[in-house]
């Protein structure tokens, strides 16, 4: 037991540096692959081309803020279809719930950008300055030319990665080849440079220096996840019932843990997993690799540190084998999350398939609701918005369906044909006239249905309902 503290705790404390040691193993290989995959997706996606015809951009994934369009391969989303994005966000949220309930902080440990980029930065650090012990020596020793050279090399490499990271982000918002050419010739808009600058700085600082502190001090997700997990969630844990009492091999202790500190030395979060579950742990599973390596060396069974569900602890303490992983994962809570997740996904897919590539919205003038003309005719005005969500211009015919043969015209012309520009919206004003002999002239409201029909053969059509307002006076 430690001594009792006599002086009050300090208010501030410098970060204790962490020097994760190199380790290889099953989880390390999995993490390399995930890193490769996620980084490749992030850096390369903006460069994928996708032919949409002459009038639309040919970038597969493009967030065109200026024109309020989102392109994703064959899908194009307009602002009024933002529910798709909302649905994707809900799916992302439920997906996190599902993965957290089933596998604990698997997002934090494998896929979170903070983890991936920190991993990459540590890789560079190790490549330049050497492994754990070399790095500790470098920190402890006074600054020499060699220290300066190593630091400069490391920071330069970090900065290049950070620059590429910040640079890749802006390519999602503009045509990537054009923007790259503009960037290197200093003709790109200021906001592009500013975005790259900010993201380069945050990547450099977060990946190089803040690292585990982002997870511990800044990120709200670890706190939320604590509430998402239960005793059946698989999480990285130390089997203290097997490892304790720990001690060096010659100390003749009965526990399997030889207190080699391998699990602590590889930990990018700078914690000791043997203290139990803790908020700093991102379950990156590197301590599993480290401990398994050591257990194999000393001829003990693997799995002293392992993915464990807390509900298995009493079983294992009693000497029984743990229940199978599937019995933990396949439980009602996860089925509910999965059901909600797939349900929303299915709805989004259906919504994408049944949506029309043109649409009509009718807004009747409300100020004034009607105008009386000199012969007593009542005129109503409507603003029609016709969306054309395709890459080519389309011709439409406008007509109305009413009980009485009311006259309709398009801002003074009886020609009711319009052309909607490619990937555009046509705003047009339409008048409907009710002569005094029609009931619509005096009725408070008369239902009107606007039809918009494509003039090409086998044309599609759509409609919108509104009303005609008469003069009841």
């Amino acid at each position, binding site marked *: 037991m430690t001594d009792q503290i006599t002086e009050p705790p300090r208010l501030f404390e410098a970060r204790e540096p962490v020097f994760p040691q190199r380790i290889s193993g099953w989880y390390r290989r999995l993490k390399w692959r995930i890193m490769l995959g996620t980084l490749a997706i992030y850096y390369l996606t903006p460069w994928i081309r996708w032919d949409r015809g002459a009038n639309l951009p040919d970038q597969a994934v493009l967030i065109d803020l200026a024109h309020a369009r989102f392109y994703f391969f064959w899908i194009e989303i307009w602002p009024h279809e933002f529910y798709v994005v909302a649905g994707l966000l809900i799916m992302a949220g439920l997906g996190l719930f599902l993965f957290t309930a089933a596998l604990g902080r698997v997002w934090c440990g494998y896929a979170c950008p903070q983890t991936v980029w920190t991993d990459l930065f540590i890789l560079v650090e190790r490549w330049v300055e050497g492994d754990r012990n070399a790095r500790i020596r470098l920190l402890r020793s006074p600054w020499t030319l060699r220290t300066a050279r190593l630091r400069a090399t490391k920071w330069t490499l970090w900065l290049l990665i950070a620059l590429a990271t910040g640079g890749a982000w802006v390519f999602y918002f503009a045509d990537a080849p054009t923007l790259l050419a503009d960037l290197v010739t200093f003709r790109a808009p200021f906001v592009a440079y500013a975005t790259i600058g900010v993201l380069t700085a945050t990547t450099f600082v977060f990946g190089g220096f803040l690292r585990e502190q982002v997870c511990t001090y800044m990120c709200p997700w670890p706190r939320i996840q604590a509430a998402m997990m239960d005793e059946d969630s698989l999480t990285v844990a130390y089997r203290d019932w097997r490892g304790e009492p720990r001690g060096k091999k010659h100390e003749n202790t009965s526990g399997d843990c030889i207190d080699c500190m391998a699990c602590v030395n590889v930990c990018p979060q700078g914690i000791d997993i043997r203290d139990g579950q803790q908020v700093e742990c991102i379950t990156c599973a590197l301590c599993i690799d480290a401990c398994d390596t050591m257990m194999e060396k000393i001829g003990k069974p693997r799995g002293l540190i392992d993915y464990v569900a807390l509900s298995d602890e009493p079983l294992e303490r009693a000497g029984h084998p743990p229940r199978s992983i599937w019995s933990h994962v396949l439980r009602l809570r996860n089925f509910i999350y999965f059901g909600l997740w797939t349900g929303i996904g299915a709805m989004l897919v259906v919504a994408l398939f049944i949506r029309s590539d043109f649409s009509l919205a009718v807004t009747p003038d409300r100020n*004034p609701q009607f*105008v009386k*003309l000199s012969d007593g005719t009542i005129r109503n005005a409507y603003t029609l918005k016709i969306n054309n969500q395709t890459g080519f211009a389309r011709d439409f015919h406008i007509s109305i369906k009413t009980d009485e043969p009311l006259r309709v015209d398009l801002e003074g012309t009886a020609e009711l044909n319009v052309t909607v520009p490619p990937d555009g919206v046509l705003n047009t004003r339409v008048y409907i006239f009710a002569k005094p002999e029609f009931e619509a002239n005096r009725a408070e409201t008369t239902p009107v249905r606007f039809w918009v029909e494509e003039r090409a053969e086998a044309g599609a059509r759509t409609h919108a309902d509104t009303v005609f307002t008469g003069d009841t006076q």
Partner: protein
Amino acid sequence: MRKPKLSDEDYPTTGHEWDGIREYDKPMPRWWLWTFYATILFALVYVVFYPAIPLVNGATPGVLGWSTRADLAAEVEAVSLRNADIDQRLLDTPIGDLGADPDLTRYATAGGAAVFRTYCSQCHGAGAQGAKGYPNLQDDDWLWGGDLEAIVLTLKHGIRDDGDDDTRFSQMPAFGDILETGEIDALTQYVLSLSGQDHDADLAAAGPVLFEENCASCHGETGLGEREQGAPNLTDAIWLFGGDAETIGHTITFSRYGMMPAWNTRISEAQIKQVAFYVHQLGGGE
């Protein structure tokens, strides 16, 4: 060497405890303290460069001299600079030809709508629907003419505006001083008949002669009105003050007229052109 770590049990707590959960009193990271100092530094720099400390009649201006007013002025300047070309085109194009150019059509309509909301909507209504005594600009009935040139003329010089030499005047006499009550009743019924409304045919029988003597010089022999005089058409369904017997009788007895100010001294030539174009395209333009 690692520093000896305190075990969780021994770590000092804040003394707060809920359901057995205790709150550690752990030190904050030092860089956090630095960010706190950085915000203080930022505040000091901000105070020097930007308006910050409130005084009795304003605030310290800051060495940059920045203000939202100046920002707005710069934005307005930038917009007018951007619009300089199209403004010139608008002025160079005869108003009748604006409709042929889609850019000018859009510019005139949008600009005219803004001008209308600022200067015209107080009387004519936000939707140009008018009000009692203020003409509806959406319908097809015009007192002084509804083609583009006529609207421009009305806008420039107003109607019955004493301050403008080119304004147009006309005034209907108050016939209460001229005619007998019975005669006014007869005229009222006759005017009702002109627009095909229900009327007392016996009373109206005396109308034609009275109308011929008193009204026809301005409203025309058949009551179709006369735009040179701004005299309303009495045969249609549109009434400036109201078309029922009581209102018509009141109008004949006391007379009524409105007044519109001349705008050529208040808004620019381009704005007049824009708002004329806007009003013309509302649905009633000729």
